[in-house]
């Protein structure tokens, strides 16, 4: 450790304090996107190690947390990229459940909503949902059964707001695959949230 630490806290990195001040935040950020504790812990550790190496470049240019989150974002994307390379999307690969049963009907209205799965009014606004930690538990549980890449595509699009081109590059997929994945993720998640959250709330 540097002898000047304490006197000039701004000039030497203090990983112990980083961990106390930002560890939980960074972990939550990572686990929300990766949905895997071990992968999220690794991403946090990698972030701190990279921060130590790059400390000279930082030196108070942004807030410490903004700087660390900036590094973590790259680590999360690296994780998705690795997963995409390790398992290239084959032609027969699973983009997610089609949920044809949602549109199966015994009457001549085949292809229209089956009454058991048809959307119903949600009595909630985003502002209310954001505050409910139990909502996010259900949200996460609803994403979990999806194929990993489909869930990742959904997160990159709907949480981080990346565009199609960026997501296709990260996940090594074509834009048509991406649109199918996003559609299936939405179909699945919407139904799952309605069953496990909105109907229960009533």
């Amino acid at each position, binding site marked *: *450790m540097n002898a000047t630490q304490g006197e000039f806290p701004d000039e030497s*990195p203090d*990983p*112990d304090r*980083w*961990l106390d001040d930002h*560890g*939980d*935040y960074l*972990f*939550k*950020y990572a*686990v*929300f996107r990766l*949905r895997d*504790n071990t992968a999220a*812990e690794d991403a*946090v*550790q990698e972030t*701190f*190690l990279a921060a*130590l190496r790059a400390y000279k470049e930082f030196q108070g240019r942004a807030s410490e947390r903004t700087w660390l989150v900036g590094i973590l974002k790259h680590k999360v994307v690296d994780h998705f990229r690795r997963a995409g390379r390790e398992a290239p999307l084959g032609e027969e690969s699973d983009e997610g459940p089609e949920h*044809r049963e*949602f*549109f199966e009907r015994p009457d001549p*209205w*085949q*292809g*229209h*909503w089956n009454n058991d799965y*048809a*959307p*119903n*009014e*949600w009595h*909630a*606004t*985003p502002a209310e*949902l*954001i505050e409910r*930690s139990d909502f*996010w*538990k259900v*949200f*996460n549980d609803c994403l979990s059964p999806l194929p990993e890449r489909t869930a990742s595509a959904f997160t990159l699009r*709907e*949480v*981080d*707001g990346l565009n*199609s081109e960026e997501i296709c590059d990260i996940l090594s997929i074509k834009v048509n695959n*991406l*649109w199918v994945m*996003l*559609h299936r993720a*939405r*179909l699945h*998640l*919407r139904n799952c*949230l*309605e069953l496990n959250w909105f109907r229960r709330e009533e």
Partner: protein
Amino acid sequence: MALKLYDKLKHSIRYWLLKTLPTCQQTVETISQSMERSLSLEERIKLKLHLWICAWCQWYLEHLQIIRETARAKADEPPDSMSGGGLSNEARERIRRRLTNHS
């Protein structure tokens, strides 16, 4: 009498549109695409007409928008969605040791 006739006419138009337009199954796919790219004029008209007569697909669209808005609001403020929120004590200690060895 006139009201009854109007209702009948409305019902017939609705029936005819539902038979003519893309099904709900096709429409929800278009709804998802509309969040990714700009739709063609034909797609837009068919979607508008379908939504005009189908409350279910209206809700579907509204729900996808709620999901997007809610998820984006959490981009900078991650929720305690798993593991009760923070790092486990083991993970914290493991990372602490790793960082100490490095500095």
